[in-house]
């Protein structure tokens, strides 16, 4: 299958452009900073409430959630950076001409690139989530609850953004595409909070607007569900926090997001197939 060859090349390209190494190095730096902060915070809580006490674990879990929030944000940024010019760059440089005139279908190029980008994004988020879990276990003998589902949802969140960016790159230049995708993500981010506050203040209109925007760009909704699953119980009871979620989007929303990604990918294929190169 030529798809795997394109996927391999996409991954290889990111490696050659040093994106993989820069991501890994900055990821390590992030984990180092997180480990230091987590250690200092946990030492204080353990002194105050005793090691492995409910308060110490609760605080540690809250701090871990903040780290996961940062990982999700970094994942979204990486999703945009790696995909923003993946097709438009090759179209403008003419590189695409020698690829498209080979015995392969255009959909194989789009899907191959998507798979290569997905592999890169998944590895990045997996690496950071695994690193963070290792740190919290080594320091506090604690791992955030539902970390596997949470990580999968964070990958899905980044995949939504990456797929939108791939769609944009079939027609838009890199800069315009980056602006559009980040604006859409910003919109989804704001809508997520609008829904959250709407629920707290029982404002049905705000909740409705939040839901509609989340359906248009379901990235933030996936983080909300991931955060709801991974957050400590006291945050859930409190109703909201800057890094967690008072309520979780339903499993149906996760299924919707999967379908959404497939539809956006199909649209990218369709646009690329119809485009003059």
């Amino acid at each position, binding site marked *: 299958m030529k798809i795997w*060859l394109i996927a391999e090349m996409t991954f290889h390209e990111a490696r050659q452009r040093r994106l993989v190494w820069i991501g890994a190095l900055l990821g390590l730096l992030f984990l180092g900073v997180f480990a230091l902060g987590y250690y200092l915070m946990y030492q204080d809580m353990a002194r105050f409430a005793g090691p492995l006490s409910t308060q110490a674990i609760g605080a540690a879990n809250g701090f871990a959630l903040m780290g996961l929030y940062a990982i999700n944000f970094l994942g979204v940024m990486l999703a945009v950076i790696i995909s923003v010019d993946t097709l438009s760059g090759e179209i403008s440089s003419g590189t695409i001409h*020698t690829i498209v*005139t*080979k015995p392969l279908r255009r959909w194989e190029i789009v899907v191959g690139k998507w798979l290569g980008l997905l592999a890169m994004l998944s590895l990045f988020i997996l690496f950071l989530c695994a690193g963070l879990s290792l740190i919290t276990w080594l320091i506090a003998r604690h791992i955030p609850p539902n970390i596997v589902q949470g990580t999968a949802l964070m990958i899905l969140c980044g995949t939504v953004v990456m797929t939108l960016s791939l769609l944009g790159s079939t027609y838009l230049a890199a800069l315009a595409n980056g602006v559009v995708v980040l604006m859409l993500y910003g919109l989804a981010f704001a809508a997520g909070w609008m829904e959250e506050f709407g629920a707290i203040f029982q404002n049905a209109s705000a909740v409705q607007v939040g839901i509609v925007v989340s359906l248009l760009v379901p990235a933030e909704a996936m983080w909300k569900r991931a955060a709801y699953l991974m957050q400590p119980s006291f945050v859930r009871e409190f109703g909201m926090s800057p890094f967690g979620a008072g309520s979780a989007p339903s499993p149906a929303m996760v299924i919707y997001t999967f379908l959404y990604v497939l539809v956006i990918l199909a649209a990218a294929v369709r646009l690329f197939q119809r485009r*003059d190169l």
Partner: protein
Amino acid sequence: MWAIEAISLRKEYGRTVAVADLNLQVRQGEVFGFLGANGAGKTTTVKMLLGLVRPSAGQAFVLGRRPGDPAAMAHIGFLPEHFRFHPWLTAADFLDYHARMYSMPAEERRRRIPELLERVGLAGWERTRLAKFSKGMLQRLGLAQALLNHPRVVFLDEPTSGLDPLGRREVREIIRQLRDAGVTVFLNSHMLGEVEAVCDRVGIIRQGELVRVGTLEELAGGTLQVEIRAQGLTPELTAGLARWGRVVRQEGNDRVLLEAAKEEALPAIASWLVENGARLYALTPCRRPLEDLFVQIVEGER
């Protein structure tokens, strides 16, 4: 079956007609030169024939199949006009990647890649990254890429741009070798000397319309220019040459350029000159330069 066939092929960009109802047939095994001024529609035509651009109307076939059909593309090679690829790849990796797109087995790739690099004059550059290649070297590598799959049809879009005279000669030689091997070559070029040297037939496109197709002789209208060098070319003798054609110009008493109707007239001209007292040193048939034809067709018909 034609190697390449275009039936009323048309491309419009808004109100601009880039290619207007182009009808063209290219035979298998011929080298076809496609000429036109800048912006005449050459590259758009090539892109439609390769499935890179969707026609607004009409149909195109390459090896009997629609452009873009993988079954046809497996037998097609293409060198784009401004060939570029990922600069971080080495020459060998670049060719390996493209060979894998043809599903070429590893063993064949190991044999074919050094062979092609040798053929385009890049032996010894296998491990060098494309970033360090000059424009001419990139062009040679692009040509190697176009020949990877032992193609039956090769599209070359300005293949010698960026090449030095030696490189141009090598490319001409490769084109001749391809023709000898029965490969159809569609040569898109405005290097008229190059087209003249290697093409069996030529098509000339002007403002999106194919205005002439034929061999160079056919394009010249069947006439042949003959340079006569002889001592004693009197005005009477020069005037007498008119029975075989038109005297284009006379230089002194020993040189005349005659436009003859057909090549068969040459022995008779030679005999007549000698019989009438001229000392004939040379009688050289020379084809009318393509550049003259091109300028006449492209500008003269405006």
